[in-house]
């Protein structure tokens, strides 16, 4: 019990440290870099609009919600305090709108598509990988493994382009492509009221279909290969063979002996993949014009909306760090060995 607590505390500290580090990097970029956005803003205000130094500074203070009259250390402290309260100030592009409310509006869509895609690929990949490990001597094993290895190396946005062309551009001899791609921009069609009604849910699903498919296809190969390797090494473990010799039913062996032990090393990979996909979502959402957090980050960057930019980046990092924390806790709960060996170090 004590090792469990120490393990959890250890991982919790690491998670907080990561978030703190990212926050500090952002503060450094905004406030301390030569020609940082605040200094630049003050300069433009003074040069272009002829404002006095004090006036320009006051405007910048308001805009970036930082008290520029304070010392840097005090500013840093105030900044951290705000970040803890998830207060990133107001967006510059849409003045008066808090960054957090924009994030709250966009994030669920990205979570929906990324989450469904990841889950879909995980379920398919894990089952296929386990099956391949059992059927190593069949003719289709090298075929499926080859395709998986191919899929896992192609960049996700190229898969998105292929899907876009296959479903939305090529007419396949008929008059129209399979999906009316220009109708599918955005998260749902105009005229559909968001809520828990069937019309909205189907509409949202159809709009998210191609992004979800992209995430699923780009990840499925990895899961197949990982699970195949993991299952093969588990199948040859003594405890599985001994379970067979004990006359235990194959299904029980699959769930209690093979499945659990083979899944363990993969569960930590889940969080790492999530980080990767969230990064990739920038490009995917741009391609499909899907109004998620990734597209919002791109808009914020090109519009130099610094508060929004840092808010989104921090939320992305937090999402990844928290999920990898959960994955590790999950792993530790499932595997009694891990707490003993990994609790102490790092």
């Amino acid at each position, binding site marked *: 019990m004590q090792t469990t607590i120490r393990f959890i505390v250890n991982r919790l500290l690491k998670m907080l440290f990561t978030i703190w580090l990212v926050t500090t990097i952002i503060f450094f970029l905004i406030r301390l870099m030569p020609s940082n956005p605040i200094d630049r803003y003050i300069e433009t205000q003074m040069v272009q609009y002829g404002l006095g130094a004090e006036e320009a500074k006051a405007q910048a203070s308001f805009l970036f919600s930082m008290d520029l009259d304070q010392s840097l250390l005090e500013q840093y402290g105030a900044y951290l305090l705000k970040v803890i309260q998830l207060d990133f100030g107001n967006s510059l592009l849409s003045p008066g709108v808090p960054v957090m409310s924009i994030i709250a509006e966009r994030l669920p869509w990205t979570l929906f598509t990324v989450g469904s895609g990841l889950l879909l690929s995980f379920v398919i990949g894990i089952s296929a990988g386990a099956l391949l490990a059992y059927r*190593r*001597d069949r003719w289709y094993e090298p075929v499926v493994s080859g395709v998986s290895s191919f899929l896992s190396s192609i960049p996700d946005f190229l898969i998105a382009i292929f899907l876009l062309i296959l479903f939305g551009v090529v007419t396949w001899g008929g008059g129209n492509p399979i999906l009316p791609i220009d109708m599918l921009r955005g998260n749902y069609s105009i005229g559909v009221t968001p809520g828990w009604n069937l019309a909205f849910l189907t509409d949202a699903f159809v709009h998210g279909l191609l992004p979800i498919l992209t995430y699923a296809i780009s990840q499925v190969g990895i899961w197949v290969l990982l699970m195949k390797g993991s299952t093969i090494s588990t199948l*040859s*473990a*003594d*405890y599985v*063979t*001994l*379970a*067979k*010799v*004990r*006359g*235990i*039913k194959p299904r*029980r062996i699959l769930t*209690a*002996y093979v499945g*659990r*032990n083979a899944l*363990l090393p993969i569960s930590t990979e889940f969080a790492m993949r999530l980080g990767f996909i969230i990064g990739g979502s920038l490009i995917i959402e741009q391609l499909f014009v899907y109004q998620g957090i990734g597209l919002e980050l791109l808009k914020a960057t090109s519009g130099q909306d610094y508060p929004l930019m840092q808010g989104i980046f921090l939320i992305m990092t937090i999402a990844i760090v928290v999920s990898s924390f959960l994955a590790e806790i999950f792993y530790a709960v*499932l*595997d*009694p*060995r891990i707490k*003993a060996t990994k609790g102490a170090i790092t």
Partner: protein
Amino acid sequence: METTPLLEIENLSISFKTKRGYLKAVNDASLVIHEHESVALIGESGCGKTTLSTAIVDILPLGARVTEGEILYKQSDGNTVDLLTLKKKKFRTLLWSQIAMMFQASQSSFNPVKKVRMDFIDAAKAHHPRMTEKEILKKSEKLLTLVMLDAERVLNAYPHELSGGMKQRALLALALLLEPKLVILDEPTTALDLLTQEKVVALLNELKEEFSFSYLFVTHDLSIVSELADRVVTMYAGRIIETAPVASFFQQPKHPYSRGLIDAMPKLALEQGELVSIPGTPPDLIEQTSGCPFAPRCHRKSSLCTEQMPPMTTSQDSQHEYACWHPYLGV
């Protein structure tokens, strides 16, 4: 010893599919284990002894296949069945309840993510679905105490919390859980230090007295053979080349290879004899010759040996069976 055969292996051949072709790991092997008998299967690594023992419980590795022969087993109800052609479901009911096995090293024989008690419960439930957990644990505790373990502690521990010797003994208790008729032990002592080895060997002997089952144990350690076995079976290059009661095996081995093995064994205090190893290495099992596989390393070989495989012959006192054209006969 007038006993009935429990397990009869007849003309068993097992092949591995490899890149270079078929590798005959076990070649026309026949072997009998009687009731209450302890049989040792010895030979160098790679001679096929482990393959042979895993074939009995149908856990041959991927790519290995029994090409011919049968494994006849006399069930507790008196009927004899061929394990190789038995339906999988029926076969599963025999496993562990009548034939149990312990692996080489056995350090990872318990499910690493579950407490040891689950391995006991799973084994019992597979054969007696109506047995309650309480009954199973009670029986397990009794057996664990018998193998000199703190039953309470072991059952509630994860495998990684137990030492090697403890796991070995816990596995023995697990093997005896359903009172099997035959226990197969693959290198039961290799991973243990000498003192623990000694304890396990003593324990195995005691348990055999108490439960009266048969052992088949596979080893290359002749010192435990002398302490545990009633009969010794020697394998070389996939073939069984000699079978003999333990005493006369050590005193008068007939086959030059058996003799070589005994001479290579370090003797304590007995005589200042030189430790002699057998020259050469075991043959390639893929390109087999028609002659005796041991001929290239044998100092008694003649031209006959390289041409023809010697048949199994019974010695005059009918104690030994050997496959050799030029055995050590007499003194």
